[in-house]
């Protein structure tokens, strides 16, 4: 029979299993399961998938209990409008706890449908079978779930006593099922909150306060002085600047403009508050006020300690660490008429909704938080600040706003995994047994209120104390005399739950300490543990892991056989992760055997292999469990080896992956996962357990390798060397270089203080000479010449010459029209603006006759008779031939005229007196055309003509005297311009490989010499202009410049390059600077690294690293290369907003030591960084 109803009317019935809402109106309910009459199943769970695959596992559970195929089940997570409020997704409890009502709801629905089918089919229920929602009797009659529901709306209240399936009947649960989310993720479908696009959506960014990472104290929410909206007025499409208390945000039509506005916005803050000094974490934790809370007191600890034959007092320290989510937080909010919607990556949608309601003073019922997937966050998104940020901005502009934090904000402001201090007082009895275990842990609380609530002053910025440090604070060992104290304390730095929470540091202490006891007792550490372990499943696990790893008893420490500098060791640790409110409950059991290799010379620790065993009870999706174990092993190995948040004056300074490195592929241990078959036992949380034994297993392995105990994380090379009593000795410094005044010179056109007095004195002398020289006459203006009188060839030649002279580089303002002038040149005397050299009659050179132009080029005199400042290099242009000057004139006159007034120079007296320059010219200028040297080749002379004349290379590359004139005796010996060093082009070059004709040609032609580096700073636009110059002229310039260097042998240079690169390969990261290099620089600079778009400059060969001055290196680190000479070279990001002066200085010093090991260390690098930060980026 044909169904004549419209699709909308068809199949409208449903069966739901619900419970009364925890909060909300009378009669409101929350749904767990809905089966529609078309047979689809919606499963609702209040927890969210943090990337662990629980969406898949929950679907398996529902499919199993409901007897439908896995493909039929849609799992809905985290949308506050439709999912039950089951609290925050924390503590690995989704499967163990939160899935229980869902499972029961599925069983209840199945039971209801089966009962109804029995009635319809008039058969006893136990004679029916179910296959994918089809109920069949032995007589082959059948009916589907959908048919049983039909048009009815059936709502069942969740019952607690529903029988669930026996494990032996499972066919979906317990089998590995592919993750349902991966095809979408692997092909770029809309998955993440970052991908949400709402019609009319704008882009927002926030500006955070200077107290980076601190969220308690009277200054929080009260530190903003002013926001200068005018500072961002030029940003295209800027919609709003929003300020509420210390909350500051910008909104723009386009994302890149929101980013620019946030970076450019001038915000004044009150002077920085005195934050807790975190240079000594242990001291800071001891000084933080705390309240002791006794968790257990068994036997007589004090008496046992007194009687101990060998007392052992130990302290273990865990640093601040980052969750380090790969995707900075993002949210979209739509504060609309019809309701408020927030697309969020929160871990706790319902709690967030309460916070948002409080923030904007609206009822919760008006707000729908829609949870989208996010980058893995491991506890960080318990405080999904950005959702509140987006809501405030959307409310301010009345349109949907998407906000994403910058990487720097994510690093600085993510609530950290907190530092923790564990003290153990205990010891051995004479028989080697444990006398007592007196354990105290200090854990700053990790409440992390939503930041916008604090910044806007909606809630008070008080440091709240919670009972959080007690997770797994009681060791798993049955010590006769045991006392455990949790010292509850307020946060120091903003913190939230982080995978393994306080259990991880507590276990580091428990499992290190028992290893120390075993060593003192001279008993194998596993055997010793088994003496005190009473839990049968724990014992089984420990034995299984020991067997799998081939553990050999090691009762007494023996120095291992070294392989060169490498010593190897093996360590064990075990934990039952006990979490949630004390006394809490256990998740999966976990045990590790870690193998390490320690380089005693460098301090580098490599975890080579981990056998990770786990008893997880019933594994819903065994592949999912395996992934969680592997993920935990890798992440916690990273945390143990290298992770530690850095602070300066109490504020977080690590703002990118160089300052906070995480483990990279080549550093991975081999991982052998052992999953105990316990499918008959209830399922246990597996999201964190395998992290918990990590640090202790590795520390115990390092002890096995070296005989030294390390009780503080992370196990960096510096810490290991220090522990091995071979502290890092800085490489011996070479004697200071002899003063090379040829390379440092006072340039009147570079902004440098401290030399004004001397210059002024010399100027006075020049005035005397200048006064004796008669002023120049004006040359009469003409009507703009008709460019059509010049041949196309002449104009084309003129264009090449303009490119050679790089006229447009100086005569064009930032984002201005080419050659229309207006570029400010900062000098110690004030600011000079370059002039308009388009043929506009009023504001340019349109009224200039050729004689006037030629006089300017040769004599430095304006058409009106004024002297031009020698920032204009007429001293070079004077050498140009008449024919070339005429061609250049023709080209300039053939340009479109642009009306652009040149701003008035802002020069202080007496430098604003142009007649002074007559004296300067008399002293330093010889307006003679170029004279070829008959003893040299034609090509050499051609090169000389180009370089000395229009090319004016020595204007930057020669040192100058105190009055700013080039020192002829030091021609091309290097100089400074615009805050950059223009290196020597002669044999005085500091480059490790001399310049050759071929390399000069390559550099001038392509912007890159493999043996020296790429053009950057002021040289990049010069190379860009040279693209218009023909090959033979570039070759001539190379020939000429090469003649100032020693003769070359290409193969010798290549061999030297290979040798230098091999000798300076980075193998360890034993300093902060080295770690920054590996995290931030190596991706594009490591020799032999994977190809990326753009060039791959080799730092070992780079001239800048071998120079006496760090300026160019610092310039390029701070400002990057935004405008390369040619786009093929690629781009370098600016790190100025991601690194502190101290970090840049550490990096620059490391690079010098590493890549120019034969050169002396630079001095005062941090001060130079500070100085260069103030100069104009180019």
């Amino acid at each position: 029979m044909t169904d004549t109803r419209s699709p909308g009317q068809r199949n409208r019935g449903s069966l739901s299993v619900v419970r009364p809402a925890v909060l909300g109106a009378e009669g409101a309910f929350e749904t767990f399961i809905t089966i529609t009459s078309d047979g689809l199943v919606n499963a609702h769970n209040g927890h969210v998938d943090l990337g662990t695959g629980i969406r898949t596992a929950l679907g398996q559970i529902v499919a199993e209990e409901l007897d439908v195929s896995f493909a039929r089940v849609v799992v809905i997570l985290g949308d506050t409008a439709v999912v039950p409020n089951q609290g925050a997704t924390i503590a690995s409890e989704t499967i163990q706890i939160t899935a229980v009502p869902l499972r029961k709801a599925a069983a209840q629905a199945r039971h209801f449908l089966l009962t109804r089918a029995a009635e319809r089919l008039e058969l006893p229920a136990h004679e029916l079978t179910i296959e994918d929602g089809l109920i069949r009797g032995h007589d082959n009659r059948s009916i589907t779930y959908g048919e049983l529901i039909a048009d009815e709306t059936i709502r069942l209240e969740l019952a607690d006593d529903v029988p669930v399936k026996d494990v032996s009947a499972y066919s979906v649960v317990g089998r590995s099922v592919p993750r349902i989310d991966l095809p979408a993720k692997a092909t770029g479908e809309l998955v993440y909150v970052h991908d949400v696009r709402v019609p009319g959506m704008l882009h927002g960014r926030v500006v955070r306060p200077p107290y980076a990472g601190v969220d308690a104290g009277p200054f929080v929410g009260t530190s903003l002085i002013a926001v200068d909206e005018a500072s961002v007025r030029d940003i295209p499409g800027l919609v709003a600047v929003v300020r509420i208390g210390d909350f500051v945000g910008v909104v723009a039509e386009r994302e890149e403009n929101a980013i620019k506005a946030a970076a450019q916005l001038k915000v004044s803050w009150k002077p920085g508050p005195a934050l807790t000094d975190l240079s000594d974490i242990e001291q800071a934790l001891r000084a933080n006020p705390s309240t002791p809370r006794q968790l257990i007191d068994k036997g007589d600890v004090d008496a046992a300690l007194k009687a101990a034959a060998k007392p052992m007092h130990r302290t273990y320290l865990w640093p601040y660490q980052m969750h380090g989510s790969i995707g900075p937080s993002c949210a979209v909010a739509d504060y609309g008429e019809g309701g408020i919607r927030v697309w969020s990556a929160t871990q706790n949608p319902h709690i967030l909704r309460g916070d948002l309601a409080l923030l904007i003073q609206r009822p919760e019922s008006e707000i729908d938080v829609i949870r989208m997937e996010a980058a893995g966050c491991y506890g960080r998104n318990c405080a999904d600040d950005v959702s509140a940020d987006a809501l405030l901005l959307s409310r301010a502009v009345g349109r949907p706003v998407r906000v994403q934090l910058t990487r720097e904000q994510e690093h600085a402001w993510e609530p950290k995994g907190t530092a923790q201090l564990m003290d153990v007082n205990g010891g051995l009895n004479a028989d080697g047994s444990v006398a007592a275990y007196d354990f105290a842990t200090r854990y700053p609380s990790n409440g992390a209120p939503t930041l916008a609530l604090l910044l806007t002053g909606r809630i008070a910025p008080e440091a709240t104390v919670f009972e959080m440090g007690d997770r797994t604070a009681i060791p798993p060992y049955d010590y006769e005399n045991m006392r455990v104290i949790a010292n509850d304390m307020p946060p120091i730095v903003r913190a939230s739950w982080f995978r393994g929470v306080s259990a991880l540091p507590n276990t580091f202490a428990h499992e290190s300490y028992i290893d120390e006891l075993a060593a003192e007792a001279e008993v194998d550490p596993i055997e010793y543990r088994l003496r005190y372990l009473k839990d049968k499943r724990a014992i089984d696990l420990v034995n299984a892991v020991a067997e799998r790893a081939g553990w050999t008893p090691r009762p007494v420490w023996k120095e291992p056989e070294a392989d060169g500098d490498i010593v190897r060791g093996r360590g064990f640790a075990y934990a039952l992760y006990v979490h949630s409110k004390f006394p809490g409950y256990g998740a999966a059991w976990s045990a590790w055997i870690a193998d390490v290799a320690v380089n005693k010379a460098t301090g580098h620790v490599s975890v080579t292999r981990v056998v990770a065993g786990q008893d997880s009870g019933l594994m819903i999706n065994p592949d999912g469990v395996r992934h969680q174990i592997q993920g935990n092993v890798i992440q916690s190995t990273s945390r143990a080896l290298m992770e530690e948040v850095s602070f300066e004056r109490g504020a977080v300074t690590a703002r990118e992956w160089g300052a906070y490195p995480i483990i990279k592929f080549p550093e991975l241990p081999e991982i052998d996962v052992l999953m105990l078959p316990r499918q008959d036992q209830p399922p246990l949380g597996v999201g964190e357990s395998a992290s918990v034994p990590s640090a202790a297993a590795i520390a115990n392995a390092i002890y096995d390798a070296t005989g030294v105990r390390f009780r503080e994380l992370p196990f960096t090379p510096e810490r290991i060397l220090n522990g091995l009593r071979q502290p890092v000795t800085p490489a011996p410094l070479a004697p200071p270089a002899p003063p090379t005044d040829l390379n440092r010179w006072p340039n009147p056109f570079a902004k440098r203080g401290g030399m004004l007095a001397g210059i002024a004195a010399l100027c006075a002398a020049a005035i005397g000479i200048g006064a004796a020289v008669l002023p120049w006459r004006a040359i009469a203006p003409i009507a703009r010449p008709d460019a059509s009188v010049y041949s196309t060839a002449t104009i084309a030649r003129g264009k090449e010459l303009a490119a050679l002279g790089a006229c447009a580089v100086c005569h064009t303002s930032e984002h201005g029209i080419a050659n229309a002038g207006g570029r400010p040149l900062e000098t110690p005397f004030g600011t000079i603006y370059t002039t308009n050299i388009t043929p506009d009659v009023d504001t340019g050179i349109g009224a200039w006759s050729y004689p006037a132009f030629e006089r300017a080029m040769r004599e430095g005199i304006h058409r009106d008779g004024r002297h031009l400042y020698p920032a204009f290099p007429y001293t070079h242009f004077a050498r140009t031939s008449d024919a070339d000057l005429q061609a250049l004139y023709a080209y300039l006159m053939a340009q479109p005229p642009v009306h652009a007034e040149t701003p008035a120079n802002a020069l202080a007296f007496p430098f604003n007196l142009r007649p002074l320059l007559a004296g300067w010219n008399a002293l330093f200028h010889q307006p003679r055309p170029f004279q070829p040297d008959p003893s040299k080749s034609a090509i050499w002379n051609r090169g000389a003509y180009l370089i000395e004349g229009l090319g004016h290379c020595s204007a930057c590359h020669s040192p100058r005297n105190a009055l700013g004139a080039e020192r002829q005796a030091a021609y091309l010996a290097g100089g400074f311009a615009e805050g950059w060093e223009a290196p020597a082009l002669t044999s005085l070059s500091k480059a490790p490989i001399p310049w050759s004709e071929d390399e000069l040609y390559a550099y001038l032609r392509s912007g890159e010499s493999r043996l020296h580096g790429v053009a950057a700073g002021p040289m990049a636009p010069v190379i860009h202009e040279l693209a218009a110059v023909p090959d033979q002229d570039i070759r001539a310039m190379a020939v000429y410049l090469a003649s100032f260097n020693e003769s070359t042998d290409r193969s010798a240079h290549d061999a030297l390059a290979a040798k230098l690169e091999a000798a300076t390969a980075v193998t360890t990261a034993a300093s902060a600077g080295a770690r920054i290099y590996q995290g931030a620089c190596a991706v594009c600079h490591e020799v032999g690294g994977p190809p990326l778009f753009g060039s791959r400059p080799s730092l070992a060969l780079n001239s800048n690293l071998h120079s006496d001055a760090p300026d160019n290196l610092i310039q390029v680190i701070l400002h990057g290369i935004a405008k390369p000479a040619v786009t093929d070279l690629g781009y370098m990001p600016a790190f100025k907003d991601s690194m502190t002066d101290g970090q840049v200085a550490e990096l620059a010093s490391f690079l010098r030591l590493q890549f120019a090991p034969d050169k002396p260390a630079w001095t005062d690098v941090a001060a130079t960084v500070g100085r260069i930060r103030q100069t104009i980026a180019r």
Partner: protein
Amino acid sequence: MRLTVNGRNHDVDAAPDTALLYVLRNDLALNGPKYGCGLGECGACAVLIDGVAARACVIPIEGCAGRDIVTLEGLGTREHPDPVQDAFISEQAAQCGYCLNGMIITTKALLTRNPNPSEREVLEALRYNLCRCGAHIEIIRAAMRAAGHVLEARD
């Protein structure tokens, strides 16, 4: 400015210094490349430019004119995935999946220049792609599988 992305030309109305990433995500509504660090450190934003892996967060569109840009979407779709995408799905090579774009693109670039890499070469090729969840083991297997290596089954 005209950009060629996934074989199609797009005229984009954005400032020349706009990072390619924002144009791909916002103007072209592509989800594959993701913002991770803005400094080229993590690889989440990777795309192919003229067949070479590139970090779209640090490359302005003015550097992309006339170049052939391919994103994750351009490799293949759910119905017709690229062999590299297929290998990553088969090996379940992601947890949260935020880094997955970079892992797939980087593997694709590796296999383009070296169709038969060793495991060591895979590790080195992926050295500068960060994964925080610890999905590395599956990612390595996926890359090896995409390269045609026969993998041992896991127990």
